[in-house]
């Protein structure tokens, strides 16, 4: 949700000023929360711009409103994996009609796939195909695609480990992978441009924010396993642009 708000930030503030598509598979979008994050995003911009006299900044600021921010976020819901496949098949058509979209979020890709398939090889084929469709949308329309994934327990001879869902083939399909832990750590697992690093964040009333710390060094340490809260793995397909978590 933080990303869909951030993508709406105007160019003068360093944002993409684009629209977003949010595909919600598990009812995680509670509009009241999105509204409070959107309000905080605007306040953040207002604080940055306080005292600025540049005409573009002033103009952009006066046009910003919660209503306008929300009107650029398109939400699609689905309840089964077939509906999700149907939505993604129609996505290129939608993106063609809505050229301002710069971000597509799928939350989450694993929710429906983890339990409805008995034939795992079919599931792998379908998911790989899905990933390819998303990659081609990202390239063709020059947008970022962010997908969330859940965690599952893998039982092996060494015991049980908590790993991202959907197996190895899904792991290969994504360009960038970020692992989020409930206590506020984000671990960059895979990236074409950066090495593996850890970042600290917090979830506040306003959304996701940095944690003020004395050292700028990023720690490298083992990522712990799950707590009873949710732990999510975010997979990103992002051919050209960097995503910033503000």
């Amino acid at each position: 949700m933080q990303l869909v708000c951030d993508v709406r930030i105007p160019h003068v503030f360093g944002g993409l000023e684009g629209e977003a598509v949010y595909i919600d598979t598990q009812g995680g979008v509670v509009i009241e929360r999105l509204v409070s994050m959107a309000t905080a995003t605007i306040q953040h911009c207002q604080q940055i711009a306080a005292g600025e006299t540049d005409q573009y900044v002033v103009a952009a600021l006066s046009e910003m409103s919660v209503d306008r921010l929300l009107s650029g976020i398109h939400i699609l819901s689905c309840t089964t994996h077939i509906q999700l496949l149907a939505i993604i098949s129609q996505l290129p058509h939608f993106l063609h009609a809505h050229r301002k979209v710069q971000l597509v979020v799928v939350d989450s890709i694993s929710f429906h796939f983890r339990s409805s398939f008995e034939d795992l090889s079919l599931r792998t084929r379908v998911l790989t195909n899905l990933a390819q469709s998303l990659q081609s949308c990202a390239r063709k329309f020059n947008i970022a695609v962010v997908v969330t994934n859940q965690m599952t327990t893998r039982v092996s001879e060494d015991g049980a480990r908590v790993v991202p869902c959907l197996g190895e083939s899904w792991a290969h399909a994504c360009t960038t992978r970020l692992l989020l832990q409930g206590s506020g750590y984000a671990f960059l697992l895979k990236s074409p441009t950066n090495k593996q690093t850890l970042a600290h964040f917090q979830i506040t009333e306003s959304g996701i924010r940095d944690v003020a710390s004395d050292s700028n060094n990023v720690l490298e340490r083992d990522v712990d396993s799950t707590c009873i809260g949710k732990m999510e793995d975010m997979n990103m397909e992002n051919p050209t642009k960097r995503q910033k978590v503000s």
Partner: protein
Amino acid sequence: MSEIDDLDVQQRLKNALKRSRLTTLKSILYLTEPVGNLGAEDIQTIKIAAAKKLSVLKPVTALELRNSPRENQRLTTGCGVLDQALRGGLLCRGITEISGESSSGKTQFALQLSLTAQLAPRYGGLDAGTLYICTEDAFPSKRLYQMIENFTSRHGKKLCTHGNLGDKIFIEHVPDFDGLMHCITHKAPVLLKSGAVKLIVVDSVAAHFRSDYEGHEMYKRAQHIGALGTLLYTHSHEYNIPVVCINQVTSSMKPEGRQLIPSLGLSWSSQVTIRIMLTRTDRSLTIQQDSARGPLETVVREMEIVYAPHLPPLTVPYVIDHEGMKGFA
């Protein structure tokens, strides 16, 4: 007559599909590579037509959602303090899980919600009944009747229709997983479609899963849990109703963190939208009741919001008296 007959594509493509025995929309959407006489482009065209038939894209902007009353509807718990912690009450979408040790007040909470659901919408209710599915003990009728008496005397004016509140609570006892799935697959939609029921309670979701599966059947158990969760979520989404699942607790194997965690593991917790835990503390409180009864000494309990998409983690203390749960600051 199959699903593809009225698909919006050329006849030659439909014929090719029939020759390759692809007669359901599902099988078309599963296609990943050219098959039969159909090239890659043909496959694309057919997939898009199938997708449109299955689910026409109806995107809603966040602005429209914010202004829609359906999105903002909440089910009140019957207590102002608890409602405030939940920012209005239970979400009318997704699965709300209430877990806790025995006698922490889970069934009490569920019974209370079965009554508040019958309140008029402007008082936080849904003006409809409840489907209460019992998987372990018998339904606590005596406790319910006691609560109905107190509820009617206190909230009588806020109900839309009058009559016995118990009549609107549909109780089902199910002996095992298959019985549970049958009830939710076949009986629930009948009640939901008629509008008789706008709340589903499963008490408890853990009972069958903890006892009916052998050690080597864990994968099957995870599949079944997923199937149950998906079915409940689908009903919740389609009819815009809250689904409340009561869960038991189990000991955590980890040395740090909390000692008791909700049972059924990751496969269940990923299905849950809002997780609430109830605990008994070792504190007690003497509360003043109305003049007909004397003061009551009762144990203090706590309701903890472990996670919810729109709520910060929070713990609210409460007590249970003859009228139900009462939170306090």
